[in-house]
């Protein structure tokens, strides 16, 4: 079944070389605002006075903390470890002393506290490097996967899926796709890293090529980043196996499913993964990090973060250590709170980013941007108005959904109907809410519905288990009861038998008595009774 939809890498590349691209349905064109931050090189900044390193920064399970408070750690030293394949370690972003291991507000919409290691830098920046694997082509793939995992690399594009898991596909890889689209407005971290570090990105791609053995490699960059595109072209000049494509600017063309559709014309099956149609996709930043880990022995301890928005006097891109509290970055970009009506910092872009709860929230592996808008820039919405069923949302939806039906059913908590309208297929890109004239926070409703559905499923599973437990117990009790009754019955039978036996004795006795009496009478007839016999 799956092979039916498998793409043909040679065919795809031939089409790309002819300039043939596909389009995905829907999409929107929000103002780009990239030039606010993309004109200056990535800034190397001073270390913050303190780092808050959450022990789980990826999708999967967290590792076990392997350091103690007061311990001195080197830059790049692992702070957690685990043998669980779904676990990725986190590392000390710089050398220093572990000050605390406590709950700390997380880089999550809820800001819910998470186990976090507080590290105080010692200012020495002493690296603890892993052995270099410079000649990686002579190294077994499993060693490279192990290295990628040990370096703490997860997808840096947004989802944070462990890279070593993704890089071990069980199916043949037709196309390795490198995603440099960066379609979210304002964000320019990938743009800058492509412009400045195209060569190292190419090295990362080569390592991936060695690991996953794709038939073809495609790099896709949105056409609003010509410098990045040129830099990559220069870096890949000698390499015939790589096709570099510029894709039209449209949000969300950088979404994994949408980019695959643009490049190949094929869709990822709803119940499958890109690898099911032969695609594997990595973000350019992830490629950079892979090269760092393999060729330089460096764990993932920093990433490029875009600091942007009209409330920042000096918007820019910086190399931020993982765990840097956002207050430090806001200072560097000269945040002016008076420019905002309500103080607000968006982690990520304007379409899919979330607001940080406070300024101690740390930069984590998936933090690509801090957007600090002024009061006119991204005004807060008033209360939502009634849906007028205009259908603009359906036109904007890149997943081909009917957002207003989803909204209707989500709001009414008719989750079975919401699921019948394929709520799961929603990628939460925000295009529907972006165009909604009634300013309905549609995505918010979908998230709520999805969470509720998950909870309901969980509850159901729980109650199912409870029911099973109950039924097992009932069965056990019944069995016990039956066993007991059986025992009682047997015992009763035995008693009865004994009783019967005893009863027989009695009859015997009666018979014996009668016999005796008879004998006596016979004897009396023979010998006439005396008075004493009466």
């Amino acid at each position, binding site marked *: 079944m799956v092979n039916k939809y498998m793409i043909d890498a040679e065919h795809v590349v031939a089409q790309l070389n002819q300039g043939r691209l596909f389009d995905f*349905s829907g999409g929107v064109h929000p103002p780009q605002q990239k030039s606010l931050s993309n004109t200056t090189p990535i800034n190397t900044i001073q270390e913050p006075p303190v780092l808050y390193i959450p022990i789980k920064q990826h999708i999967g399970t967290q590792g076990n903390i392997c350091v103690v408070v007061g311990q001195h750690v080197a830059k790049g030293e692992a702070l957690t470890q685990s043998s669980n394949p779904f676990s990725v370690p986190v590392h000390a972003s710089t050398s220093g002393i572990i000050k605390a291991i406590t709950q700390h507000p997380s880089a999550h919409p809820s800001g819910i506290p998470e186990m976090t290691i507080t590290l105080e830098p010692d200012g020495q920046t002493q690296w603890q490097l892993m052995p270099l694997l410079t000649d990686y082509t002579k190294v077994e793939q499993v060693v490279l996967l192990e290295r990628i995992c040990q370096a703490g690399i997860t997808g840096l594009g947004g989802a944070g899926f462990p890279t070593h898991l993704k890089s071990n596909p069980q199916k043949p890889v037709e196309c390795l796709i490198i995603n440099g689209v960066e379609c979210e407005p304002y964000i320019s971290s990938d743009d800058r890293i492509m412009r400045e570090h195209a060569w190292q990105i190419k090295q990362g791609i080569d390592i991936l090529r060695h690991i996953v053995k794709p038939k073809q490699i495609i790099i896709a960059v949105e056409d609003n980043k010509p410098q990045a595109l040129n830099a990559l072209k220069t870096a890949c000049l000698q390499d015939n196996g790589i096709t570099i494509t510029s894709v039209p600017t449209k949000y969300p063309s950088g979404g994994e499913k949408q980019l695959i559709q643009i490049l190949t014309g094929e869709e990822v099956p709803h119940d499958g993964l890109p690898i099911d149609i032969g695609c594997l996709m990595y973000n350019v930043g992830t490629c950079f990090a892979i090269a760092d880990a393999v060729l330089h022995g460096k764990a993932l301890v920093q990433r490029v973060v875009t600091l942007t928005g009209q409330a920042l006097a000096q918007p820019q891109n910086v190399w931020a250590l993982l765990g840097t509290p956002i207050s430090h970055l806001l200072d560097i970009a000269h945040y002016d709170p008076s420019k905002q009506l*309500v*103080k607000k910092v968006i982690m*990520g872009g304007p379409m899919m980013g979330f607001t940080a709860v406070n300024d101690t929230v740390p930069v984590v592996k998936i933090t690509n941007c801090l957007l600090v808008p002024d009061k006119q820039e991204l005004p807060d919405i008033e209360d939502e108005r009634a849906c007028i069923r205009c259908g603009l949302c359906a036109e904007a939806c890149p997943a081909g959904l*009917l957002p207003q039906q989803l909204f209707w059913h989500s709001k009414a908590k008719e989750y079975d109907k919401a699921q019948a309208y394929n709520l799961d297929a929603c990628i939460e890109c925000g295009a529907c*809410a*972006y*165009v909604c004239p009634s300013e309905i926070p549609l995505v918010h409703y979908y998230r709520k519905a999805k969470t509720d559905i998950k909870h309901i499923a969980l509850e159901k599973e729980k109650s199912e288990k409870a029911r099973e437990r109950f039924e097992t117990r009932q069965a056990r009790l019944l069995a016990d009861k039956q066993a007991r009754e059986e025992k009682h019955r047997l015992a009763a039978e035995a008693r009865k038998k004994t009783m019967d036996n005893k009863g027989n004795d009695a009859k015997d006795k009666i018979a014996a008595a009668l016999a005796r009496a008879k004998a006596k009478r016979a004897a009396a007839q023979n010998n006439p009774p005396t008075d004493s016999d009466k």
Partner: protein
Amino acid sequence: MQFSLSSSPHNRVRRDTGQVMRMVCYACIPGVLAQTWFFGWGTIIQITLAMLTAVVTEATILELRKKNVSRGIRDYSAVLTALLLGICLPPLAPWWLVVIGTFFSIAIVKQLYGGLGFNMFNPAMTGYVVLLISFPISMSAWLPVQTMAQTSFGLFDALSLIFTGFTQTGYNLAQLQLGIDGITQATPLDAVRTGLLSGMTYSETLSATIFSSDWGWSYGWSSVALAYLLGGLVLLQQRIINWQMPFSMLLGVILTAGFLSMLAPDQTGSIIYHLFSGAVMFGAFFIVTDPVSGSTTDKGRIIFGLLIGFWTVIIRTYGGYPDAVAFAVVIMNIAVPLIDYYTQPRVYGYKS
């Protein structure tokens, strides 16, 4: 420092419901001007009356429902409904007609169903249908195009007629309707219908007085239709409405009218006649495009429009009323949930 929280997306298109409704109102201007030019001040007076009634009714009911009144009024949906209804009414119909119709549209059809976004029927058209069924005489009292009328009248005559039933010089509406030949002149749709019913052929009906003028074939009505077409194209260009519903409705009219004229040549109106008479052009761009009561899927919109076009011609030809856009729209409003259900788009990753 604590930050304020909000949910993504954080930026939005700066075009809200109120703006959308206002743009539709503005797009009606060419049509309303043309209508005023050909049929006198009555149209403007009716629209004004309807808007006043609509806003008062809407505000009262929002207040009763304990909703935010000024916010509700500012979405301009009531104003638009009133405008659409006012356009459809005979220009010199008595004032109470427009008041009753508008009240019904806003209070019953819209607010009783839950207000903006929840009404399953098109408010303006349902109001119109109620008036047409309840007051058929007043609702068909259209005057001939002004230049053809025997008696000309101005703004004050129109006001006086609407509020008192007589012009300043003492004519009533029935007298004004009488043509040069002393025959009551209704709309071209009426004339053709009556003609066909009395055994004339379509071409014979066209020779009736109502069509004869220096300008040729029913120029007043067709000019008004063209003016609404112009406004509709602006709405399309501004992406306020989709192409699916207007064009599929026009296609529905063309196909049905074409089929009927093929079936019985000269016994029914021609395609052009159907397209440019009555409310077809206005309906295609301003009525069927009402998002609330219409279909919401691309395919559904095409089916919705096609069938409205179909019913319009069928009811015009075989029904008891000369024009039928309102009936067709209300009939198809009922079918919208069904159409929407069966025309869901294919979702990404699902093979059809």
